[in-house]
């Protein structure tokens, strides 16, 4: 075999630059992001077992027979047990209401930033962005001190003479709503701002020249144009909140049923990995449509198409 032949053969085996550039992130993401979901799917069909790891294998191979044993019991249990259904519904309700609240609070804020002076915009965006770099844990923890029975809010209200005895806010759903809106508000504002700042002001001027009221042109021009920003912001809030664990755990109480918390308990407290996997699979099935919507809007954004 001469040198040139050898080289050609090696070239076929060693990927070229382009394949490497695509391949490295692709393989990493496939291995550590996509493949794990299939393992979750597999284990959701297993049975809990007192062993390490604590589940049974779903296939056996003996005497040239491959046996596949799918245990549907975990899914049947999710359907039967009211706790799980209530937790899913609770999570969806929490996520929906918080998303709407974030949109109602975040849209005017993003609008105000986008219409501020250019230098001021940078500062304001950083002010909004900074909390997202701070641990969600710490920001939620800050509210624990404020909302507790002998906390600052109750102390303030009592010293004002508005209430006689402390209000129970911590460990209720109200506290979870406050915590979720507080933590996720920046994720609503940032994509909205990124969208609003690109708008062409001459459209609004043209509308007002033609006699449109400010509210009318806002409703008919600004809102429809910011559709992509609204979708991205809402998905960035809605999807993670459905699986949120830290906020309901720290601020919520016994009435707070959310699926992220239930999954955590199944996994860490009951050590029931198959049921936790089944919970994750169902959660993913519920979220797949919003996730695809988000990915579409993100792909458009990334390719620079509008």
């Amino acid at each position, binding site marked *: 075999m001469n040198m040139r032949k050898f080289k050609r053969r090696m070239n076929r085996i060693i990927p070229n630059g382009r394949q490497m550039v695509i391949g490295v992130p*692709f393989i990493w993401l496939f291995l550590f992001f996509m493949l794990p979901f299939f393992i979750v799917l597999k284990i959701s069909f297993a049975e809990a077992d007192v062993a390490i790891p604590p589940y049974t294998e779903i296939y056996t191979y003996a005497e040239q027979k491959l046996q596949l044993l799918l245990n549907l019991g975990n899914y049947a249990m999710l359907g039967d047990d009211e706790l799980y259904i209530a937790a899913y519904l609770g999570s969806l309700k929490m996520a929906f209401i918080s998303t709407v609240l974030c949109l109602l609070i975040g849209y005017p804020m993003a609008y105000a930033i986008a219409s501020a002076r250019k230098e001021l915009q940078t500062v304001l965006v950083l002010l909004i962005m900074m909390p997202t770099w*701070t641990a969600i844990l710490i920001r939620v923890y800050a509210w624990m001190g404020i909302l507790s029975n002998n906390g600052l809010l109750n102390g303030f209200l009592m010293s004002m003479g508005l209430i006689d005895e402390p209000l129970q806010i911590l460990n209720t759903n109200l506290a979870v709503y406050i915590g979720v809106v507080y933590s996720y508000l920046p994720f609503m504002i940032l994509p909205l701002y990124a969208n609003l700042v690109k708008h062409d002001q001459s459209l609004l001027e043209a509308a007002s020249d033609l006699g449109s009221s400010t509210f009318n042109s806002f409703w008919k021009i600004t809102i429809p144009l910011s559709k992509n920003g609204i979708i991205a912001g809402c998905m960035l809030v809605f999807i993670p909140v459905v699986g949120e664990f830290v906020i309901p755990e720290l601020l919520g109480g016994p009435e707070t049923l959310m699926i992220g918390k239930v999954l955590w308990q199944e996994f860490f407290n009951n050590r029931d990995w198959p049921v936790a996997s089944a919970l994750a699979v169902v959660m993913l099935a519920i979220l797949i449509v919003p996730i695809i919507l988000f990915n579409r809007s993100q792909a458009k954004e990334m390719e620079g198409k509008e």
Partner: protein
Amino acid sequence: MKRFRFSSLMLVLGLIFIYLPMLILVIYSFNASKLVTVWGGWSIKWYVGLLDNSQLMGSVLRSLEIACYTAVAAVALGTLAAFVLTRITHFKGRTLFGGLVTAPLVMPEVITGLSLLLLFVAMAQMIGWPQERGIVTIWIAHTTFCAAYVAVVVSARLRELDLSIEEAAMDLGARPWKVFFLITIPMIAPSLAAGGMMSFALSLDDLVLASFVSGPGSTTLPMEVFSAVRLGVKPEINAVASLILLAVSLVTFLVWFFSRRAEEARKKAIQQAIEESAADSWKQPDARRAPAPQTV
């Protein structure tokens, strides 16, 4: 004009809503009283006490170590992904690739954490690695989701770039990798720095992923804080939280400062270029006019 004023009011109220709780937290970290809700005068004893808490300090160092590794790996991986998404428009599985890059941004952490743990357990059974879960497994988990953030930031910058500069270098005979390292990388450097800092902060903050994929003896700072906070508000935690807030606001300020300086330098350079070319065009008619009288 009325709506404009309403939105400005909302902005001010919103910023107060965002910053007031953090401010209160910082003030109360200097509270001398052991009861976190009663003010007992100023004191720094909780900060001093932190230094003696060796368990906490160990977890701080571990978290910082993981955050450093994550920042480096996430920037490398995220930049590659962003480059592929913005520059290579056609290849097999591109839609899937795009989905894989952006999905970690929104995927609930409990799902990612659980699935990665099950992967590591399955891998340990099949190929004997990882024998023990710890810093490496946490690093893999953090890199995967931080790379998504880096990819978004970097791809935004890559799209703005003037392709003609890279094309010019290519025309002059530079190899693609040389163009990438000598031209593309310096031009997107600010967004690489921003992505790196973001990954550092995200990794330092993460509780859920780390709880799933860590092993015994590899407790990170958020896990330590979480197990203390679960039982209620504690003055030591106020001090830790304030220190983290201080670090983050310092980094934010630096980002703002340097980006503003870079922006000003750029503006100055553009201004200078405009002035120079204006001066040149001013000179040219002059030069042309000068010989004119001679012909007469």
